[in-house]
């Protein structure tokens, strides 16, 4: 039996003290880990980490204190008022939440560090002393104010150290596990030191007053081990969760880094490709421009060869106009003009004037310089147009020209002027080839026909053809068999047909000379 007013001497169960130390270190380690997680996440996930982290860490701190308290055994039975215990736990959780919040900020200035450590230290100390207040025993608890103050100061100092360490190590990539363990041991030791200092400040005086045991529970040493195991498990899980989350985060980060890297590479490649496309387009444009220029130049040359024919085509209607005009003047000058005949003559003048201007328009269109204008064409119409231009050329060389044009041909896609140029070229070549003939008729046949999904145009003449050896070379630039030729006609004709997606070639083994080309169609029938 212990006498009242005597100071109770407590003793420590060192195994439980060691256990409390282990919990302190584990809780510190978990705190450092959680600080890193809270910093690394954002949005609602950050809130989850903060809440969960605070709960785990607060539970750890509280558990350390509680186990530490249980390690202290008094010669009187001790039970605990559980609502107070809960308040102590809440206090630990709140200060943990605050600590996590402070270390996860972008910056932690001196003022913030001190304020934070004061609040956190006070919270922890509060948790500790509230925990002691939960004790229900037949004794009065007295505190040595100096040691109590020391314990609070220690709590604040250790909190400051914890905040600085945690803030320093919150960047998960910048710390190593061994460094973190070392920090955890320092912090754990500090928390334990604070606790046991706090414990030392309290002394228990035996009293006869029976303790208020309402809402009180007594904890056996088995319970202590239970609390320790639960706490360590929770802390362990928290650490494992942190590790897993960190790994996922690291993987996600790595993935993101790779994605960013790859995107950057792709952007660079894309940029290069785009540049190349632009360059190529530019080169192609330049080529097309050059081709159009060359086509124009050779067209002008061909027109030069046709100048007699052109003059004739214009002169014919002019002759009719002059003659009809003279007739009309004569009639009007006579005493009895035949007005009906005069009217007819003037109508013819108008017709012939139109005819002459059409010839001029045709020539102007052919001499016009410009980029090719690809449109849907009725190839038969193009052939007829050209035939009008070369008609006189054929007549004066006594060449009979026959047309054999298939009806209902699909339309082809091409530049009207350039196709006319190709035909003029082939026809003039043919006329020149048959002009020298004296032993047989000078014939020229222009034929159009449907050919699968293309249109085939043939220009045949009854001339002597050309050497089979030359057959390969006639399409080469500057190759010519004519004394006055510059050798561009067939070369440019082939490039024109090919730019329209067709093919131009000569067919050997036929009597005379046969040139033919195909042009792809769009399937629409010419109207």
């Amino acid at each position, binding site marked *: 039996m212990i006498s009242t007013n005597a100071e109770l001497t407590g003793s420590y169960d060192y195994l439980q003290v060691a256990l409390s130390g282990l919990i302190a270190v584990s809780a510190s380690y978990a705190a450092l880990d959680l600080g890193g997680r809270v910093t690394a996440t954002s949005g609602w996930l950050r809130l989850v980490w903060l809440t969960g982290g605070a709960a785990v860490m607060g539970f750890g701190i509280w558990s350390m204190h509680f186990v530490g308290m249980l390690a202290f055994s008094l010669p009187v039975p001790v039970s605990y008022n559980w609502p107070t215990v809960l308040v102590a736990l809440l206090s630990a959780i709140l200060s943990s939440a605050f600590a996590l919040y402070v270390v996860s900020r972008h910056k932690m200035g001196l003022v913030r560090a001190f304020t934070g450590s004061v609040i956190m230290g006070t919270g922890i100390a509060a948790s500790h002393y509230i925990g002691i207040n939960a004790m229900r025993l037949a004794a009065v608890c007295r505190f040595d104010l100096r040691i109590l103050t020391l314990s609070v100061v220690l709590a604040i100092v250790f909190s400051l150290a914890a905040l600085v360490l945690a803030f320093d190590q919150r960047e998960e990539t910048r710390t190593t596990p061994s460094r973190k363990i070392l920090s955890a041991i320092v912090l754990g030791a500090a928390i334990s030191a604070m606790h046991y200092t706090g414990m030392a400040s309290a002394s228990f005086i035996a009293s006869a007053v029976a303790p208020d045991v309402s809402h009180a529970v007594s904890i056996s040493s088995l319970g202590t081990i239970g609390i320790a195991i639960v706490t360590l498990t929770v802390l362990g899980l928290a650490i494992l969760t942190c590790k897993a989350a960190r790994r996922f985060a690291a993987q996600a980060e790595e993935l993101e880094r790779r994605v960013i890297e790859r995107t950057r590479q792709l952007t660079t490649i894309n940029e290069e490709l785009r540049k190349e496309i632009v360059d190529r387009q530019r080169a192609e444009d330049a080529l097309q421009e050059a081709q159009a220029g060359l086509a124009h130049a050779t067209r002008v040359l061909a027109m030069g060869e046709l100048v*007699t024919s052109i*003059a*004739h085509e214009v*002169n*014919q*209607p*002019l*002759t*009719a*106009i*002059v*003659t*009809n005009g*003279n*007739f009309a003047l*004569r*009639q009007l000058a006579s005493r009895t003009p035949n007005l009906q*005949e005069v009217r*007819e*003559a003037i109508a*013819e003048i108008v*017709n*012939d004037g139109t*005819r002459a201007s059409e010839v001029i328009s045709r020539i102007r269109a052919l001499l016009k310089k410009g980029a090719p204008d690809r449109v849907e064409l009725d190839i038969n119409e193009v052939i007829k147009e050209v035939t009008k231009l070369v008609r*006189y050329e054929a*007549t*004066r060389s*006594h060449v*009979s020209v026959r047309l054999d044009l298939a009806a209902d041909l699909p339309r082809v896609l091409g530049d009207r002027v350039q196709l006319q140029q190709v035909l003029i070229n082939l026809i003039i070549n043919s006329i020149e080839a048959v002009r020298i003939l004296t032993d047989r008729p000078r014939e020229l046949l222009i034929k159009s026909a449907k050919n699968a999904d293309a249109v085939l145009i043939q220009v045949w003449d009854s001339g002597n053809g050309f050497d089979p050896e030359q057959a390969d070379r006639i399409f080469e630039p500057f190759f010519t068999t004519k004394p006055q030729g510059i050798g561009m006609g067939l070369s440019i004709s082939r490039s024109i047909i090919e730019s329209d997606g067709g093919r131009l070639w000569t067919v050997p083994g036929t009597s005379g000379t046969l040139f033919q080309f195909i042009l792809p169609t769009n399937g629409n029938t010419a109207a």
Partner: protein
Amino acid sequence: MNEPAPIVFVVDDDPSIRRAIKRLIGSVGLQVELFGSAQEFLLGKRPDAPSCLVLDIRLPGISGLDFQHQLAEANIHIPIIFITAHGDIPMTVRAMKAGAVEFLTKPFRDQDLLDAIQLALERDRARRQREAGIVVLRERFESLSPREREVVGMVVSGMLNKQIAAQIGTAENTVKVHRSRAMEKMQANSLADLIKMTERLQVPRGNSP
């Protein structure tokens, strides 16, 4: 003698020009016939009347100059007026040498064409008259007996009656009879007249001794 109405043939492959020429020539009261090609003209009927041909030198199938030559070979003597879009000098020379009346460049002055046509018709008229005269003379000459023709040939070569008689072995009086009968049949008023007639008929002259 009542002369048939003159007619102008036009060969040009351009229908517009053909019609215009027809209008112009028709306005001076001449009859006009149009052809699109030389072939058509050859196949067409050519009435017995003074006529001329307005011919485009560039024709499909055959050149106007070749056609001119063809007509001459076929003994078709029709005065030709060439029209051409552009004639060069050698072409003109060749046409004129071959008897063309005129060589006009399109577009031609209306008066030039009408003048050329008048000239051509005049020429054809003269040719016709000349040809008509020769036909009469030939008929007269053919009415002579062989002996009379023989005597005429010798007379126009300047032989005396006596020489003729000796050559053909007959009496001088007989020669005189032949001669006067021939003069009568040929309707020659004098020896000079008879000589002109035989020249036109290209009668072979009798052999001088």
